[in-house]
């Protein structure tokens, strides 16, 4: 970690909150500060409290639209994989008759099945080989839906219906655990137009499409007075608008002070240019390392609903999406590895796609899918699956890959072992998870 002045003095926080970035830069002491503190860090950073349970920062990357798990990670020893997907199947790693860019990357045999990573995800291979990427296959909702909206809702809620109203599994985790830092001013950030359902119900959470754009419009000289008036307007208000209004009012100026443009990734991380996910992950790293208390981030990536011209190979749609995904995740991993903060990142999608390709060289809504878990505390380097098989009798009633591992088994283990929250009954009500050795215990 960079050397930063540490304080738990709340008056310090108050002072900080009164000082805008531009005014701060004008202060004579600023130059001396900047000599020891990276310029992008806000002036007051908050130490993690030693008495709190050590826990990872958790990041969810959600692939909206239903990513084609059989293209992300191909079961290439299954002969039916090739008969069902004549145009879209990835070639075997050692198939010298196929162009290199059509061959998957060997992930080894697991439970008698050989799996291969999509070649566009090559940046993830070293992380896998280092044992910090766990691939779970034939996972997802065990009693799912082929509706995007139902499947996303059920998955993000962590249950089919939510007696609490409208809360997500990650929101409930945060609500049922104390802040990782008692001085946290912000615990969760949705890098999205609005809070994803995953985070709904989280205390101290805000949404920003671009964390770098957080700031309050209008005249500098009246800013504090106007924010005070807004605080007063919303203080007496008991409706649904109040929690978010208060979170924003409490965090506005601190977030405004993080200089994302000046942020220097560590570990030699190279975030791809011109990619929304890479931009969001880079901003997440800056936000997390600024240590204002952020312990959860949720990011969405769209474009996975590939009903036609799926494009698994160079120049194709999915090929490009996967290249961007793999490169961005690898950069984030390198960046975070260069810090002292542990993280767990999960990649989820609402369902896999049909085992067979359709007449439009695409795939339709299916069932079992892959999921990734990445981090220092992940027991990876393998494909975890109760592989159901691709023979006709092994597929589900619609002829698609079955779901044999409930995605909540993995998430619950992460919540307990990596996020330090044993209250799984709150996070996944009515569900008894089976731990599958996806993690090492935090320590």
């Amino acid at each position, binding site marked *: 970690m960079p050397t930063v002045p540490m304080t738990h003095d709340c008056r310090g926080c108050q002072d900080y909150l009164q000082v805008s970035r531009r005014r701060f830069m004008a202060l004579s002491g600023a130059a001396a500060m900047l000599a020891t503190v990276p310029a992008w860090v806000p002036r007051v950073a908050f130490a993690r409290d030693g008495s709190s349970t050590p826990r990872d920062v958790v990041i969810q990357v959600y692939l909206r639209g239903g990513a084609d798990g059989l293209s992300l990670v191909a079961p290439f020893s299954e002969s039916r994989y090739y008969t069902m997907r004549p145009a879209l199947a990835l070639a075997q790693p050692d198939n010298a008759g196929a162009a290199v860019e059509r061959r998957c990357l060997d992930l080894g045999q697991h439970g008698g099945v050989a799996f291969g990573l999509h070649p566009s995800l090559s940046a993830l291979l070293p992380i896998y080989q280092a044992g910090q990427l766990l691939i779970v296959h034939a996972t997802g909702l065990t009693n799912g839906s082929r509706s995007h909206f139902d499947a996303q809702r059920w998955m993000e809620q962590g249950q089919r219906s939510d007696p609490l109203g409208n809360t997500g599994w990650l929101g409930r985790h945060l609500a049922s655990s104390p802040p990782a830092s008692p001085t946290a001013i912000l615990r969760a950030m949705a890098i999205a137009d609005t809070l994803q359902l995953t985070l709904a119900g989280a205390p101290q959470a805000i949404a920003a499409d671009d964390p770098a754009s957080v700031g309050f419009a209008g005249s500098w000289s009246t800013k504090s007075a106007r924010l005070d008036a*807004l605080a007063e307007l919303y203080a007496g208000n008991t409706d649904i*608008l109040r929690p978010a209004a208060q979170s924003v009012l409490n965090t506005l100026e601190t977030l405004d002070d993080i200089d994302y443009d000046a942020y220097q990734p560590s570990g030699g991380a190279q975030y791809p240019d011109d990619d929304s996910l890479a931009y969001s992950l880079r901003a997440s790293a800056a936000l997390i390392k600024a240590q204002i208390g952020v312990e959860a981030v949720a990011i969405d990536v769209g474009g996975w609903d590939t009903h036609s011209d799926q494009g698994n190979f160079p120049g194709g749609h999915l090929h490009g999406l996967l290249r961007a995904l793999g490169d961005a995740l690898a950069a984030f991993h390198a960046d975070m590895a260069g810090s002292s903060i542990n993280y767990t990142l999960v990649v989820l999608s609402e369902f896999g796609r049909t085992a067979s390709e359709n007449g*439009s060289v695409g795939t339709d809504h299916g069932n079992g899918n892959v999921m990734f878990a990445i981090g220092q505390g992940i027991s990876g380097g393998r494909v975890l699956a109760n592989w159901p098989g691709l023979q006709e009798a092994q597929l589900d009633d619609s002829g698609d890959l079955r779901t044999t591992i409930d995605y909540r088994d993995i998430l619950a283990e992460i919540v307990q072992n990596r996020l330090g929250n044993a209250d799984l009954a709150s996070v996944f009500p009515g569900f008894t998870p089976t731990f599958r050795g996806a993690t090492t215990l935090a320590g």
Partner: protein
Amino acid sequence: MNPMRAAASDARAVEGDQGLDESPGGAAVAGLTAEPMISRRDLLRGAGSRMANRGVMAGLGGLVAAFAGARQALSAPPTVEYDLDPRALLYRLVQRCSFGVSAWEAQLAESLGYEGYLEYQLKPGSDGMRARLAKFNLLSRTAAQIYSIKKKNFDSGEESRKQLSRAMILRAIYSRKQLVERLVEFFSDHLNVVAEEDKRVLKLVEDRLVIRKHVLGTFPAMLLASAQSPAMMRYLNNDESTAFAPNENYPREVMELHSLGVDGGYTQDDIANLAKILTGWGLYYEWDKEAGKLRGTFRFNPDNHNTDNKTFLGQVIAGQSGAAGIQEGIQAMQILGGHPKTARFLATKLCKKFLADQPRTAWIDAVTATYTQTGGSIPAMMRTLLQPDFLRDARPKLKRPIHLVASAIRALDGRVLSSDSDLEWQLERAGQQPFQWHPPNGYPEAPGYWANNPLPRWNFLASLPWGEFKDVLIDLPRFFDGAVTLNDKMARINQRLFMGLLPAAEAQVIQAYLAGAPDESARLAEALGLALSAPAFQWT
């Protein structure tokens, strides 16, 4: 703003400046006429009209207590107590029928009264938009006409997207057919199509020929038009369906989202069979030799149609070959349009849109019955829905960004210049750029989705009265004309933004801020920004 998206916006702005927008800057001002211009005919028509859980909380451990308050907050609209005097009820009717109270709208409603105003909105006269939309020269054209425009730097897709999006914003602010515009908003979400790529031109045409054409007609007619709409077919891939490889995307969504609802009782077999029924439904492409004027219009191609006999929702639909094959799809859409599940699904959504996020069963029953009795007449359903007895018990509805932006400009009597790119950017930041919702379920209606992101709203509302947006002129001296004392000014804000019904606690905060320097125009602008940001202005 996310730089990646900002870059896209910039690109649009540059193209926009080189597009068809050739009017001299100052000449194309689309101002709001100060006086209501209600024709005698409109008045007569209006005046002469006759009005016809709590969940299971056990077993959730300590979290229940933690959520006891939050649960209220998460599901509860504000506890604003509207008194039931006729003026408050009229105010609520105007709020639900429109994109917000303007001086013009308030005067119209007060002169016509509850029943007269509602009838006016259900049988509107002219929208009064001719001059303001004059420069949007693509709105009335066919796809083939738009494609055939040969002009330097003219990008038919981008120009179509821009004109449709900006026309939508201007209509929300200025159209005299306010309820029509709110219904167009509703059905544009219900039958969502994202205006991107080739769907930009097609969506512009669809807005006219599917949504607007049928919005005061019947829902089954709109549903059939939507099924045959090239924009929808491109969006949900029905154009790629073939006799041998039927595509299930549209068949699934049309039942789940457009008609029966996800719990509508259909099966995977129904989806597969509807896909077969709709094979051959597509559109004329540039390369079709018979295209010409037909390019971008509906085409039934018998050679691509699966002629098997099919069973759909329990009915046998006999396979037909040749030109008659189209009848199978028409029959299937009629089954959907006439289905009791569709009536109830649509009635429920309309009640959620216009009355309350958790509508009463009695309201849904009544609107469903109207659907069934009238063959899905949309105005008839709205007349049932907006009756005083229902509206009296309605709950506040959170304004989505387009509604908020339009209502703020309406309240301030703002003049939007024709090159109104500022507003599109503001809407993008707030998460509701017109026609840019990608999944087929349309921009969400539930308040929980929108409530957690107040900052872009506050920033827009703080900036607007300042004249921060070069494309939106706010005349503060005129707004406060004749208001001399602090109390006068506060009363003016209350009257123009809230029809005089701003809750006292919020009024106090605004007034205290205003009192800091009541004669400075900067302070007036800031007080207006706070009033627009107050909780009361976020709800209808």
